[in-house]
């Protein structure tokens, strides 16, 4: 495992929950970028736990503006760096809410302009910072505070928005998915992306113990399970080349993944909701087929 001797650019003392997947993600990203980077973040967990005034955890230049505009801000930073002839990389680290929902338009615009920015979305699958409300990234049947389980509700009814496909549809230079469970894969992809000119999109699956309902020590275990079921396919697509995916060594039934988290516990209460679990298993099987994992 390399990387442990790389400089640590997220200082201790930040206010992330113990076991925070997003914090692990940020640390791994910064190991890959090194110091010569400007990071742009949207409002969200990462922004909030890293930047109280006078107690910033960022060792690299960092800018937070608003919730929906990390992409166009990054476009502006990139344009300015070009004017100043500086080689510094521009990386966005924003959450799923900011990326899939409120920042969607601005992100699409950035892709269309092919701004020289690596847009990294840390996906904890809900608006965690404001109290676990559903986002476009929340998976089917997950319980959140705005899609709570009740007598007439089994959680979120809609499917997870396929942002990597949307990114690929823009024809940008590089699109990849990864997980904090595989730091080498994550760091390799970030390193590759920042050295490509144009727009790049990387989506990192970052489990949230508070929001998903599991013990903080299990963050990495659950991140691995998500990949091993096929629910979170890991792949990369460079423009002009074929899609390359990470094969699963031993496929795990999705039931095991669902059982591990409080947000799916309603699928196992009273009678097991076989029908729904089968639907989710089908999603996994489809991914396994499409991505050849």
């Amino acid at each position, binding site marked *: 495992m390399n990387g*442990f001797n790389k400089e640590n650019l997220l200082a201790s003392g930040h*206010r992330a929950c113990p*076991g925070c997947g997003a914090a692990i993600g940020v640390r791994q990203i910064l190991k890959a970028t090194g110091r010569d980077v400007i990071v742009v973040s949207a409002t969200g967990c990462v922004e909030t736990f890293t930047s109280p005034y006078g107690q*910033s955890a960022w060792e690299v230049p960092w800018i937070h503006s608003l919730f929906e505009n990390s992409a166009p801000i990054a476009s502006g930073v990139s344009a300015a760096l070009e004017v100043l002839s500086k080689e510094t990389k521009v990386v966005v680290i924003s959450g799923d809410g900011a990326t899939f929902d409120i920042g969607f338009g601005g992100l699409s615009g950035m892709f269309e302009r092919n701004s020289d920015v690596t847009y990294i979305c840390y996906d904890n699958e809900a608006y965690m910072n404001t109290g676990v409300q559903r986002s476009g990234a929340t998976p089917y049947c997950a319980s959140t505070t705005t899609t709570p389980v009740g007598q007439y509700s089994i959680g979120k009814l809609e499917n997870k928005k396929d942002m990597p496909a949307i990114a690929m549809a823009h024809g940008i230079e590089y699109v990849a998915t990864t997980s904090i469970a595989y730091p080498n894969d994550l760091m390799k992809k970030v390193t590759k992306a920042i050295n490509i000119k144009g727009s790049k999109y990387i989506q990192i699956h970052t489990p949230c113990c508070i929001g998903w309902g599991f013990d903080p020590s299990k*963050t990495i275990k659950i991140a691995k399970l998500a990949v091993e079921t096929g629910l979170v396919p890991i792949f990369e697509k460079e423009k002009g080349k074929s899609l390359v995916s990470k094969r699963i060594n031993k496929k795990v039934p999705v039931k095991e993944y669902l059982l591990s988290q409080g947000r799916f516990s309603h699928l196992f209460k009273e009678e097991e909701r076989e029908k729904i679990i089968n639907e989710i298993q089908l999603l996994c099987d489809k991914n396994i087929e499409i991505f050849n994992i």
Partner: protein
Amino acid sequence: MLPHGAVCKPGQSRLNKTGSWREFRPNVAFNNCNGCGICESYCPDSCILIKDSVSIVDYDYCKGCGICAEECPKDAIMMEKEVK
């Protein structure tokens, strides 16, 4: 205070000693630790470092999440109740 709209200096989060949050603390059995660095790459708080091929915990900041103990391939880390 910098007079420039909420712009501040880097790395000052270190003023906030999050070690006070913890209920359990990780203890590394140096004999079993082979310095592989897996704990370091998974720690959310940058508070376990590899020094001289073993893991050293920075107890000023460790929040006691237990990921290091869970992921250690050598079972070299045990979580024990914090004594306040």
